[in-house]
């Protein structure tokens, strides 16, 4: 298919539809309104359903109900709205239902700003709601990658019966880029025998539930989840390594910031300093082993994490590197997107320090 110039949000919505998503429930919030708007125009034309919910709380519970019925379903929002969804996401994780949640991060805390941010990393990767659970969290750094990841998102959700989050900064949502919609191979997915479709006596009753009042039963559910998370950590890590071989400094960044870091790396290169980038594409599971291996190279002297946050992913970076080499952080919480020059300056300065 030919390349098409599209706004990130619209491309994400189209990719979801092409991935088989036929149900969308959402509530307006900037900077992701183009997703529900696109869905509202397309869904009725293809036999799907777009419904504007009365709140993000309702939207995520509609997702819960649609997922329970076995549908490919998604919702999208931005930071404050995603906070409201957390109860529902926890229930979806507990009830072991597949769905996709998109968060176009904006500045926080509170009402924050409508500019891009990466301040929801903790919320996305550490569970977000109550209880011991994880989401698979995919962090695209271009519109094309967001489009491609959308297919993975729905498949991963179905395979592992878990909510999957597409975590993007507002830049991805608002930027226009040329994109191509590839044909994706149809994966063999597990049948949704657990879905509530009406009990005709030919299978056990389907009960979608996250209540396990007995300690040992709840333990069993949690053990099942943890085993699944372990499998995900082993099999589903996605990471880009850019110019890491023989690098002196390793930068770790995700999303749009990682692209800016690539420009910063070129600036450093021009000054004769070899800098590489480790860009997690899955931020949960975090590419711990991959980062550690890169850091273990003799050429590597230090690591610098760059984020639009106070250093949230940096905690995972530090856990992964575990004191092997010095680490550093560059970035600000809120909505300030650093420039390539600022990042390059910081890299060169810390290198000399």
């Amino acid at each position, binding site marked *: 298919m030919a390349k098409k110039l599209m706004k990130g949000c619209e491309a994400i919505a189209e990719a979801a539809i092409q991935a088989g998503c036929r*149900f969308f*429930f959402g509530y307006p919030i900037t900077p992701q309104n183009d997703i529900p708007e696109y869905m509202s125009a397309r869904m009725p034309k293809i036999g799907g*359903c777009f*419904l504007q*919910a*009365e*709140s993000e*709380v*309702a*939207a995520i*519970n*509609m*997702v*819960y*109900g*649609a*997922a*329970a*019925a*076995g*549908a490919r*379903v998604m919702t999208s929002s931005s930071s404050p709205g995603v906070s409201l969804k957390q*109860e*529902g996401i926890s*229930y979806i994780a507990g*009830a072991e239902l597949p769905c996709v949640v998109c968060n176009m991060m904006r500045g926080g805390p509170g009402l924050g700003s409508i500019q891009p941010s990466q301040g929801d990393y903790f919320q996305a990767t550490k569970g977000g709601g109550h209880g011991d659970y994880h989401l698979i969290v995919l962090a695209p750094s271009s519109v094309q990658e967001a489009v491609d990841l959308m297919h993975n998102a729905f498949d991963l959700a179905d395979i592992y019966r878990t909510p999957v989050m597409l975590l993007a900064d507002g830049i991805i949502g608002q930027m226009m880029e040329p994109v191509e919609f590839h044909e994706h191979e149809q994966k063999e997915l597990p049948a949704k025998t657990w879905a*509530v*479709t*009406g*009990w*005709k*006596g030919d299978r056990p*009753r*389907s*009960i*979608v*539930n*996250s*209540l396990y009042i007995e300690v040992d039963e709840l333990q069993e559910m949690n053990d099942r989840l943890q085993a699944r998370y372990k499998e995900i950590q082993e099999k589903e890590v996605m990471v880009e390594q850019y110019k890491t071989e023989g690098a002196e400094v390793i930068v770790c960044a995700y999303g749009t910031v990682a692209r800016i870091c690539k420009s910063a790396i070129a600036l450093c290169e021009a000054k004769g300093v070899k800098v590489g980038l480790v860009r997690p594409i899955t931020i949960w599971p975090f590419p711990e082993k991959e980062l550690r291996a890169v850091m273990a190279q003799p050429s590597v002297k230090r690591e610098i994490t760059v984020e639009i946050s106070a250093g949230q992913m940096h905690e995972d970076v530090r856990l992964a590197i575990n004191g092997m080499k010095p680490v550093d952080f560059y970035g600000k919480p809120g909505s300030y997107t650093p420039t390539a020059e600022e990042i390059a300056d910081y890299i060169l300065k810390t290198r000399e320090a």
Partner: protein
Amino acid sequence: MTTVFKKTPVLTDTIMHYCPGCGHGIVHRLVAEVIEELGIQDRTIAFVPVGCAVFGYKYFAVDCVEAAHGRAPAAATGTKRVNPNNIVFTYQGDGDLASIGAAEIVHAAHRGEKITTIFINNAIYGMTGGQMAPTTLVGQKTTTSPYGRDPEHCGKPLRVAEMIATIEGAAYVERVAVDCTPNIIKAKAAIKKAFQCQIDGKGFSLVEVLSSCPTNWGKSPAEAMDWIKSDMIPYYPLGVKKDRTNE
């Protein structure tokens, strides 16, 4: 020997956990009998609440979903939109529906969502140990209104059936009680009509059931039934609040 009563197969054989004299058991039976009589067991999906009826999925012999506190109407919406041929009902208490889930029930009605809600008004939070609900009567003592509900402090009880009836999308709304046999018979007729309303695709239907919670009211089962009549019905008048099923 002639059979005069038989448990409906839409209730499982699991022994219910409800207290003696609790209205939940009665309403479960009525709902299950209606599902049997309408021949919709094989396509009904029950959404049970967070409240004393939280284990409803063990009792209703249909596919079930346990919803988060107050969110059943939203979750039920998701399922109904996926499979419009399913008969989808929510079963919710007054803390669940009238307090934390007030937005979800109003908007399910507002959308004219083709689902049915069975709303158990027992004027209290049963499951959490008898706290005040939006439906708790003026002067009624609960664990969080130990001096009796003071309307100056926390308003007067919410009349849900009347409120929902004002919403255009609500096709059928009735308030019933399960305090005595004649009222239980009427309650069943109302529940049946509410499900029929959904089967006919008319819109949102809700039956508010005045129900007993002897445990948290500090009454015997018999006293609790009397209290529904003496104290609840005067404030919560029974009857049809909205009916556009013939339109």
